[in-house]
C-alpha cells in the first residue's frame, strides 16, 4: 500500500511545472524564429539599434548575378506597414525598407522578394510575439 505521503508532489506544483515547461518551449521557439537567412543572398528582418526600439528593416542584399527585381516590404500585426522599397533587375544595390514611423517591433514582419532568385516570403522579428 502506498500511503498518501507517497504522492509527494502536490497537483499545484505539477501544474505550475507543466505551464513553465510549455512556456519555455513556446518562447524558445519564438526567439529562434528564422528572422534572417541566406538563400543565394542574405535577406530577411533586420533589427536596428535594439530589438524593441521600433527601428527595423526589411533587407535583401545584392548578389547571384542580380537577375531580377528586389522588393522589400514591412508588415505589422500581419497588415501592411506602409514602407516598401524596390531595386531593379541588374542592380546590385541592397534593398532596404525602414520602419520610418516606428511601431511594435516584435509584431513586425519583413516580406522580401527577389525575382528569379527566390519567391516572396515573410521573415518575422527575432523576438516575434504574436
Amino acid at each position, binding site marked *: 500500500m*502506498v500511503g498518501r505521503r*507517497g504522492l*509527494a*508532489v502536490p497537483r499545484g*506544483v*505539477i501544474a*505550475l*511545472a507543466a505551464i*513553465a*515547461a510549455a*512556456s*519555455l518551449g513556446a*518562447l*524558445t521557439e519564438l*526567439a529562434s524564429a528564422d*528572422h*534572417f537567412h*541566406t538563400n543565394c543572398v*542574405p535577406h530577411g528582418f*533586420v*533589427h536596428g*539599434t*535594439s*530589438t*524593441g*526600439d521600433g*527601428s527595423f*528593416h526589411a*533587407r535583401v*542584399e*545584392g548578389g547571384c548575378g542580380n537577375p531580377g*527585381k528586389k522588393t522589400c516590404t514591412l508588415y*505589422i*500585426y500581419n*497588415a501592411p506597414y*506602409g*514602407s*516598401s*522599397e*524596390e*531595386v*531593379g*533587375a*541588374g*542592380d*546590385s*544595390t*541592397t*534593398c*532596404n*525598407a*525602414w520602419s*520610418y*514611423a516606428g*511601431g*511594435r517591433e*516584435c509584431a513586425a514582419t519583413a516580406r522580401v522578394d527577389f525575382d528569379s532568385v527566390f519567391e516572396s516570403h515573410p521573415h518575422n522579428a*527575432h*523576438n516575434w*510575439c504574436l
Partner: protein
Amino acid sequence: MMRRRSLRPLGLVLTLVSLSVGGAAAADVLTEDPPPREGADTTPRPNTATLDAAAVDPAGGPRWRMRVYESQDGRRCSQVGQESGDRIGHVRGDGGFRELQLHEGGSCVQLASQAASVIITTLSDVPVTAEVEPERTIVRGLARPDVAAIRIVGSSDERTLEPSGRGAFLAVYEGTLTFRELDVYASDANGAETKIGD
C-alpha cells in the same frame, strides 16, 4: 511494505529550473536586447558619412536628405530621410522626430560593375499609428563620376538631376509610384543615355 520515496524535492527543483529558464526566455522577448548581426557588413567606415543630395517635400514638409558613406566591405552606401539639423529620419505631424541611425546601415552598391544604381522607396499610412502619414515616393541612387545627369520620366513630369560630388541624386514625389510608372536614365557627358532600374 514498500514506501515510495518522496518526489517533492525533485519536483520543486524541476519547477524552479523551468521557471528560471522560462523567465530568461521571456525576458529576451520582452526587453530591448542588442540585435543579432545579419548579412553583409553595411555598417559605415569611420569618418566617411556625409549628408548629401537634398530634395524638397512636395507638400512643403521638412526637406528630404540622403546620407552617403563607405561600408566596411568597400561599397558606397546611402540612407534617406527627412532632415532635422544634422540628422535624418522621420518627422511626425506633431513635430516629433524618429532618427534613422547611421550604424543601422542602408543600401550599398559596388559601382565598379554598374554606372548607377536607383532605389524607389514608397511610404504610406501606417494603420497602427494614430497619425495619418502622407504618401511619398522617394527616388534615389548613386552614380559613378562619369555619369553627368539622371533623368526621371514620370506620367506627369520629367526631372533631370545632376549627381553630387559623391554621385548621389534624390527626388521626392507625392503619392506612391513604382518602376511601372517611372523610367530612370543615366547619361554621360556626351549625352548618351542608359536606362537604369527596372
